[in-house]
């Protein structure tokens, strides 16, 4: 099978290039894309990519496989390979450090902006802050995000304005804390989001929903944030 790899080593290459590699895939096995990358790395140790848990939990190996972002470790070859060919590129829109490794600084900067931690100005209780099962349920579909950046780097609004638009991953987490019954900083959080870029640059393209390897729906969360901003302002 032919695998076309995006290669770039800033120390030796003037520009990125695509390298075609022929890979012997074992018969009768549906390997994951990460397994194929590991086979390639055995032959060519200079190939760089991030990986860790190899089971879709750590979010390290987000990459663009035949045009669609996803996690290499949980994407079976049968799902992405077309005409016996696989094209692997780094996540689009972020600066490339080397080969499939991107610089996620902008992504994390946007994540940091939404204050992704519980803010509560009440005195801490002796044991823990209670939450009813119903309130806890509101966090389902939000807290599961592993910050792999597949969604934000598939979003054209994030490509054009990565310094100003928070992006689907950050906004999903923004809503995760807006929806948390134990958080007391909702007003402050909303005030930080009410500008023309942070939330409203989302044009409902929904690439984020289509690529999320955890099956989450950032567009819906952004809709909830918009409704909260609307309620606050009308």
């Amino acid at each position, binding site marked *: 099978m032919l695998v076309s790899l995006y290669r770039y080593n800033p120390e030796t290459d003037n520009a990125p290039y695509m390298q075609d590699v022929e890979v012997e895939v074992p018969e009768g096995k549906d390997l994951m894309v990460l397994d194929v990358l590991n086979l390639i790395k055995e032959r060519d140790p200079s190939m760089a990519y991030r990986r860790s848990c190899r089971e879709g939990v750590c979010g390290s190996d987000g990459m663009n496989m035949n045009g669609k972002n996803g996690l290499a470790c949980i994407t079976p070859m049968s799902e992405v390979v077309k005409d016996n060919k696989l094209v692997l590129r780094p996540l689009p829109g972020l600066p490339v450090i080397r080969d499939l490794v991107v610089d996620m600084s902008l992504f994390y900067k946007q994540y940091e*902006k*939404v*204050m992704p931690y519980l803010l509560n100005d009440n005195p801490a209780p002796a044991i823990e802050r209670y939450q009813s099962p119903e309130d806890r349920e509101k966090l389902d579909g939000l807290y599961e995000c592993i910050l792999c950046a597949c969604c934000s780097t598939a979003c054209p*609004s994030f490509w*054009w*304005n990565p310094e*100003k638009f928070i992006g689907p991953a950050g906004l999903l987490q923004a809503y995760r804390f807006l929806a948390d019954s134990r958080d007391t900083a909702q007003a402050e959080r909303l*005030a*930080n*989001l*009410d*500008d*023309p*870029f*942070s*939330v*409203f*640059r989302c*044009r409902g393209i929904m690439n984020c929903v289509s690529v999320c390897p955890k099956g989450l729906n950032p567009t819906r969360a952004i809709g909830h944030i*918009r409704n909260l*901003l*609307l309620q*606050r*302002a*009308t």
Partner: protein
Amino acid sequence: MVNSVDSVTNLGRSGVFDWMIQRVTAYVLALYTIFLFGFMLTSDVNYETWSGLFDQTWFRIFTLLALLSIGAHAWVGLWTVTTDYIKATLPRFLVQALCGLTMFVYVVWGIQILWGL
């Protein structure tokens, strides 16, 4: 900690205000379009019926509302497009100024046509 993004060239100065303007004006424009299509389908469109329609004050007001709506709607939309695709400040500002001027001309010209000043 203040994390919000500043902007001075968008219409409403706030994201939620721009969003609201775009939705409300979209409804006005949709209503106006549906009305005009309905009028053209149900009545014989000639000089008399057309000028008869535009002679009525309520329709002139409705048309002015549609004109203002298209101005505001287009401003929010084109502001978004220019901030997405034109990265250099001066060309972006010039294109935005040109859009603003065009909309202003259309609105004033529209008023002149409607009231025949």
